[in-house]
């Protein structure tokens, strides 16, 4: 039987929804028993949130001041120690999990399956390669611990009707002093989080400047939407890096994705293809974004956004 340990992602005492998505992935493995490991300086609130996720048997906590920031160097040795007895160790395919899990896998001497998008069996998965231009079926050996990251856009978060037991799992393994957290400069705001927002309004290079990008923020606020940007817009300095949607940025799956002035480079499309409805507004009728859009409008975004804004406000 599969015994799966999921590494909780959290910040500021809040559990990241990526963890409940990992649980959904784990539940796709028949008969799996699922535990969540919370490493934190104070795991109390995060552990309670994790215990409420449907399908979780136990929440294990390790409290240590060295876990105040989620650096891979600090987390990995303790994850490795806690992995004993588990057949699988899963983390989310967010920057947190991408950073941590390969360090865990290497310390365990096993391969890692990156970006699980579908489960075909306890050791068989599907994962995207070539920026999502191909889907590979991959089989991990059954005599090794499976270390994997879960592509969060491929799984709905598990529900919140659970009441798992919360247990202390003892102390932390040695935390190396060679890696020190200095700071986090957050581009975030009061807007819905890009990775979990039901609606996302996104702007591309056509915005032309950081000042012009303000109309995207304004429309997003009217629509109670998260804000995204194409790589071109981020590279040009119109929007901060944490808003980038795409293969090398965030891979998202909102119910509604509205792309303004985004041409639709393959790496951007990779980041949105799990969206419920994609709306594209672009001046160029040949823009590749129209090939994946559910609703397309060939028009100048500088006309469309204010008109949309007025219609939705009024």
């Amino acid at each position, binding site marked *: 039987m599969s015994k799966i340990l999921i590494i909780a992602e959290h910040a500021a005492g809040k559990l990241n929804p990526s963890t409940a998505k990992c649980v959904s992935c784990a539940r796709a493995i028949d008969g799996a028993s699922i535990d969540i490991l919370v490493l934190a300086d104070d795991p109390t609130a995060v552990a309670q949130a994790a215990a409420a996720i449907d399908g979780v048997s136990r929440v294990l906590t390790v409290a240590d001041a060295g876990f105040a920031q989620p650096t891979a160097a600090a987390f990995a040795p303790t994850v490795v120690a806690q992995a004993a007895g588990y057949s699988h160790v899963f983390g989310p395919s967010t920057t947190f999990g991408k*950073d941590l899990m390969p*360090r865990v896998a290497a310390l365990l001497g096993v391969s890692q399956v990156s970006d699980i998008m579908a489960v075909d069996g306890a050791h068989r998965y599907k994962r995207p390669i070539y920026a999502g231009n191909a889907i590979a079926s991959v089989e991990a050996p059954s005599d090794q611990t499976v270390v994997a990251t879960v592509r969060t856009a491929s799984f709905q978060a598990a529900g919140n009707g659970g009441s798992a037991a919360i247990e202390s799992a003892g102390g932390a393994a040695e935390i190396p002093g060679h890696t020190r957290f200095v700071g986090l400069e957050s581009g975030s705001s009061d807007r819905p989080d890009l990775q979990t927002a039901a*609606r996302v309004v996104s702007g591309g290079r056509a915005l032309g400047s950081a000042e012009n990008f303000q109309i995207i923020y304004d429309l997003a606020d009217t629509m109670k939407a998260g804000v995204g940007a194409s790589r071109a817009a981020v590279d040009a300095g119109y929007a901060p890096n944490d808003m980038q949607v795409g293969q090398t940025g965030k891979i998202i799956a909102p119910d509604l994705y509205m792309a303004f002035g985004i041409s639709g480079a393959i790496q951007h499309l990779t980041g949105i293809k799990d969206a419920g409805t994609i709306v594209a507004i672009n001046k160029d009728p040949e823009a590749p974004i129209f090939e994946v859009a*559910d609703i397309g409008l060939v028009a100048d975004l500088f006309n469309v956004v204010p008109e949309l804004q007025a219609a939705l406000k009024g």
Partner: protein
Amino acid sequence: MKILVGLKRVVDYTVRVQVKPDGSGVATDGVKMSINPFDEIALEEALRLREAGKAEEVIVVSIGPQQAMQQLDSGLAMGANRGILVKTDQPIQPLTAARVLLKLVEKEQPGLVLLGKQAIDDDCNQTPQMLAALWGRPQATFASKIALDGEVATVTREVDAGLETLSVDLPAVVSTDLRLNTPRFIKLPDIMKAKSKPREVLELASLGVESGDHLRYTGYEPPAKRSKGVMVADVPALIEALKAKGLL
């Protein structure tokens, strides 16, 4: 200080790869091959650090078939001091790559290893972290800024929450993100100059590295296509269409 840079030979980023009709792989015959773009950024950063007097030597390493020498040639033309090809005709997985790099790290004793955060073929995003783990050294992944000061690197990382800064003791492994820099173009005289630079070829089998190729890739398929949508004429029609889908 030496800087070791990994250069993976991959299908050029402009090629739109297709899955072979029999699902046995992706069609790579005759397509343009290049340095993995993230690795090119790693090399550019290494060269800039050397030019700023923070390092003396930049060594480029590739693990792959004899043809990967082309990517080392490009790296040497960009400005690396010497190249090492670890030759293998079989594709390898990240854990093996990390073990090979560890062998080279033990031999060369670099103060910094710069690797692309992921290769654009297998999209694994594992090798730098695995090397750091096996080496027992710090990792700073997804770097958008690197500052070296003596035995310490201050690295700004592109993370989901914004920009995180870590301070790590050297030696360390840093993986590069897209906005770290814009790689230089190679000029013809550079190619000529690079011809005399040292190139070492090692057989992977001769390194005594235990294979970490534990995963078996059993099949490939094209991604599910989104069905083509509808075009609307104006904003009122757009709002109507969104309302019809229950999205407004």
